[in-house]
């Protein structure tokens, strides 16, 4: 098989060829760059750091018998890697190299995976469009005038257009599921504490979770199996062994899915609702049962999130002060001006906005009114989900209220941008897993998605439902922008 076709293979098949000796690990690792990515990347700009020499070294060192032997994986630029800079899409980390690999990176390598490069992102994962990156925006491969979603827009776009079959992102309020939805790929945010965050640059520590992208549900299960589990270097990982997801193709016969239709009565694009209804019908055909009920409107979760997440961010980002990492303002004459000048020049506008908001929510006189109220609301939101999961095995709802929006459409209106996360944020507040599943393209050729949410440790159920939708879904074709149409195979 020529490299022209290798880049189309699912990760599981690529790794199998390397394990059986039919394909060199180096050829597998380079397959994406020898496909259309070479041309597409110039327009899409999904990658901020990459080097063929680093991939060749990594492929040479990769174990040939691993579950991901030779498989290239693009990782978000907020995951620490020894072989590339780690810059979080920010000027303040210009040129910074981590002295260690994140645990998820080390586990990828131990399974034979090769880091394909670092994916573009909104600065410090704050954004929903990948427009707030110091490296410039990533564009949606389906329509270059539109955003890929964010903040993990680079990894999502790269998986969509064929650079690599798998990618890693991070999801603090939807930053994996929303770009997966906008780019027509699968995106999983695992249960809080299931994937180690050692080496993930912190944003909102009670919300952050490493997330996964793939073009196929089975590949998502494969990657989850490699990465999930306790880590002695992350005290917030769950102690019990991770759920076994090997039965991802077991179907959904007898499962109940919640259908909180009050959430999309208004304010949701009609074509998104249509895709959701077809997903519900497909699940029913596969033997699952629909359970309708009302659910707490997502606006409460957005309000809660933008107080909790910004408060935690204002604290986490205090470490970037021009002393320990990356960029320093050279004009500073004393420590205080070093901090202020470095942070003012190094952080972009959205990061500064969120630090200020979080500082306000935590400051004397406003702490109880804002931060404590938000924490109490968080308890309430967690209970809402727990009650919902007494009635069903998982929830079906939109991943996003709209189709991918145009570049520049929301950058000057922070609240409008924040509301694009209205369906994803709740899962982070409750610590539950969520999975974005691609559905048929809209009439205008843009990706649409459905989102599955389940109770803690329900990853196996979510993957089974995602697979049931995958084999029935018509995901349509890629490549409108490049007049090069092809379909990702979805059938068995």
């Amino acid at each position, binding site marked *: 098989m020529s490299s022209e076709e290798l880049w189309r293979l699912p990760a599981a098949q690529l790794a199998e060829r390397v394990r059986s000796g039919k394909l060199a690990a180096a050829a597998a690792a380079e397959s994406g760059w020898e496909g259309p990515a070479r041309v597409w990347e110039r327009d899409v700009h999904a990658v901020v750091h990459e080097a063929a020499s680093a991939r060749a070294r990594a492929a040479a060192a990769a174990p040939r018998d691993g579950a991901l032997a030779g498989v290239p994986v693009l990782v978000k630029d907020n995951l620490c890697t020894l072989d590339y800079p780690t810059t979080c899409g920010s000027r303040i980390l210009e040129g910074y190299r981590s002295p260690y690999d994140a645990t998820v990176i080390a586990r990828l390598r131990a399974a034979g995976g090769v880091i394909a490069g670092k994916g573009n992102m909104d600065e410090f994962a704050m954004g929903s469009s990948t427009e707030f990156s110091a490296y410039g925006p990533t564009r949606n491969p389906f329509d270059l005038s539109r955003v890929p979603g964010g903040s993990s827009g680079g990894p999502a776009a790269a998986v969509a257009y064929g650079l690599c079959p798998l990618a890693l992102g991070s999801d603090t309020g939807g930053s994996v599921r929303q770009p997966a939805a906008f780019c027509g790929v699968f995106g999983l945010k695992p249960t809080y504490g299931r994937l180690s965050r050692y080496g993930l640059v912190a944003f909102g520590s009670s919300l952050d979770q490493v997330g996964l992208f793939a073009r196929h549900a089975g590949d998502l299960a494969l990657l989850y199996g490699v990465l999930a589990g306790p880590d002695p270097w992350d005290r917030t990982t769950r*102690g019990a062994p991770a759920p076994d997801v090997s039965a991802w193709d077991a179907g959904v016969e007898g499962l109940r899915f919640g259908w909180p239709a009050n959430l999309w009565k208004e304010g949701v694009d009609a074509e998104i609702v249509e895709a959701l209804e077809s997903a519900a019908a497909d699940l029913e055909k596969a033997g699952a049962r629909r359970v309708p009920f009302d659910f707490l409107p997502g606006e409460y979760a957005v309000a809660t999130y933008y107080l909790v997440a910004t408060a935690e961010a204002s604290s986490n980002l205090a470490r970037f002060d021009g002393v320990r990492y990356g960029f320093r303002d050279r004009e500073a004459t004393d420590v205080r001006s070093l901090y202020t000048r470095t942070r003012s020049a190094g952080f972009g506008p959205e990061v500064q906005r969120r630090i200020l908001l979080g500082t*306000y929510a935590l400051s004397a006189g406003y702490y109880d009114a804002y931060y404590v109220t938000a924490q109490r609301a968080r308890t309430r939101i*967690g209970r809402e989900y727990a009650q919902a999961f007494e009635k069903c095995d998982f929830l079906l709802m939109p991943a996003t209220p709209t189709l991918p929006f145009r570049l520049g459409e929301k950058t000057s209106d922070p609240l409008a941008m924040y509301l694009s996360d209205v369906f994803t944020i709740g899962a982070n507040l409750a610590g539950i897993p969520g999975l974005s599943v691609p559905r048929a393209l809209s009439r205008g050729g843009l990706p649409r998605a459905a989102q599955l949410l389940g109770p803690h440790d329900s990853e196996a159920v979510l993957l089974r439902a995602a697979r049931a939708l995958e084999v029935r879904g018509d995901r349509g074709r890629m490549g409108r922008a490049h007049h090069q149409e092809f379909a990702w195979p979805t059938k068995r």
Partner: protein
Amino acid sequence: MSISREDLERIAELARLEIPADRAEALRLELSAVLSFAEALRKLDLAGCEPSQFAPSGVPMRVDELDGRKLDPARATAGAPESEDGYFIVPPIVDYIEP
């Protein structure tokens, strides 16, 4: 809820950020809009809801134990803008005062 100019200056000081004069009013309005939106939480019935700092997990976190890995100071400081012999270099913190 509207943030005053004084509030904005105070939180910028706390956050160690300088706000350019020509950005201050726009920023004040943007932050006020988000806080006004957050006022919606007042409509939510929070009776019996204690504040939660972390996502409810239902599963205890693992026992904290280290595996002996150590990071060499020279490597730990190598990514800093200025370092020497495993130390971070910063501008003077205390002025020298003649005794």
